[in-house]
């Protein structure tokens, strides 16, 4: 079994099961359930395929325990693709799969996080304690999906884990920091949403007119730092001038 220390799994433990999604895509599943190390190993395989310049490979979507790969079967045979996947699985794990460390300022509670009170009540703690709990963890980007630049950050402290809201909100503001089940996330743009809103950040997740890629890549690590409304307002002014936070280098 893979270890839980965040290192990629030993190659021998990764035996992919490959399912067809039509003739032009495959779902590669690692039948071991979710773990942080499997998730990182999947990201590594995805990155290796991206970097392989394999003719006929189109793109891949990493998820928590699977990888979906689309390809042109008139150029790349299924057999060759599966061989490439297997050899990517067999390669020794690299030093990191992205792994930049981001510190995201967050205004907790109040109008910025209207559900923090409910979350704290469910957890049996004060709002301030709930915020400290959320900010105490270093999260890992397990995948992006739902919206452009929407990163699923695992693993939320146990005490904060709640099911989604019974009724989704029709409009969640961009920059909202939210939690649901074992995850936390930052809404990159305004959208409907069913997660609990506990805070807000002025940091843009992906301004496509300025940023070639979203702020977070799969495999990155993210920390939250509580700031007050004035500090957030000052940051918002800098964001308007084009500021984006710089990550700490890969570890």
């Amino acid at each position, binding site marked *: 079994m893979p270890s839980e220390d965040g290192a990629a799994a030993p190659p021998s433990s990764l035996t992919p099961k490959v*399912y067809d999604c039509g003739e032009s895509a495959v779902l590669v599943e690692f039948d071991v359930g979710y773990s942080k190390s499997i998730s990182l190993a999947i990201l590594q395989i995805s990155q290796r395929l991206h970097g392989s310049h394999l003719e006929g490979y189109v*793109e891949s979507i*990493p998820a928590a325990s699977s990888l979906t790969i689309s390809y042109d079967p008139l150029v790349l045979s299924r057999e060759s693709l599966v061989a490439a996947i297997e050899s990517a699985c067999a390669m020794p794990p690299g030093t990191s799969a992205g792994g930049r460390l981001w510190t995201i300022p967050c205004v907790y509670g109040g109008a910025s996080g209207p559900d923090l009170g409910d979350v704290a009540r469910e957890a049996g703690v004060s709002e301030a304690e709930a915020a400290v709990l959320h900010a105490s963890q270093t999260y890992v980007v397990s995948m992006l999906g739902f919206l452009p630049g929407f990163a699923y950050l695992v693993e939320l402290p146990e005490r904060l884990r709640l099911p989604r809201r019974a009724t989704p909100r029709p409009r969640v503001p961009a920059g909202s920091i939210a939690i649901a089940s074992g995850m936390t996330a930052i809404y990159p743009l305004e959208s409907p949403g069913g997660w609990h809103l506990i805070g807000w950040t002025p940091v843009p997740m992906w301004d496509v007119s300025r940023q070639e890629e979203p702020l977070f890549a799969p495999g990155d690590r993210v920390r939250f730092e509580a700031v007050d409304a004035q500090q957030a307002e000052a940051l918002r002014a800098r964001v308007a001038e084009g500021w984006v936070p710089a990550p700490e280098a890969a570890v």
Partner: protein
Amino acid sequence: MRPALTILDPGFAATIQDRGRVGWQRFGVPVSGALDPEALAAANILVGNAPGSATIEAMGAGLRLRVDAESATLALAGCAAPFRIEGAGAVLSASPLRGVTVHRGDVLRFPPPKNGAVYYIAAAGGFDIPPVLGSRSTYARASLGGIEGRTLRVGDAIPLLRKAAPVAPTLLLDASFEAPKSIRVMRGPNADYFTERAFEALAGAPYTVSPASDRMGLRFKGEALDRLNSGEIPSQGTTAGALQVPPDGQPILLLADRQTTGGYPRIATVIGADIAAAGRLAPGMAVRFIEVGREEALAALKARAEWLAALPSRLRAAPQDALTSERLLGENLIGGVTAGEM
């Protein structure tokens, strides 16, 4: 003023679409692009554009445009009926699948789609719209691409790259684009979440497209597809043509604006050769699902790719007398009883 096509009425729904935003799904960006990429290619090659260039994708009735350029060559392809050109002194009827030169002030009135859901309007030289992440396609949910990232509105001026129609022969294309009566599927990646009875149901009576469908997916109504268990699967990457089944058992066919990941199990996948055809299905239409194997899917994809690659060789110069007779027809129309419909 910049040369443009101006929206007088967007009709039911119209967006700018090209071949889509490929390569960004790992960052959560849907591919988007034309629901019917074959009709997209046909409209474009008729006006001398690259087959994947940006076009206006229109759904439903009511689209009306005005030509705000010296002239322009346009072509209509897809599930399209002849459209009307209300110009100075004449009302013309122009067929789909041929280049048509229009002039400043002409008002183009498009009828509802025929035999399907969508059609495409290409302009020679293309539209002057900046690409976002490599594509001009509109993804309205995240305000990406097209005109301000949204569906077209009254008053939008869609800028043209050419200020006048090119001097080139007018072309005709012999092809047809109709919604299918059946589409072929392969067994899906989560097939083991379903009962054998579900596969029998899927291959049995036709499923009807519900009005709740959109560019993200076609919602079907028909016999419920039973699952072996009701549990969610962990979120997985989605693919074009995936037939996913929510707990109510009514399948949803994922189209161009599908989210990149999802947690409903997928019983089947529409084969690549039939995805463009599936994109033509309109609410109320019934379709049968036919299960095929991978070899058949691959052979069909190869045949479809060859058909598409050969489309340019099927272009013919439009006969001049056809144009004349259309003009005469138009003049008759304006003087006759049908003028009252205008």
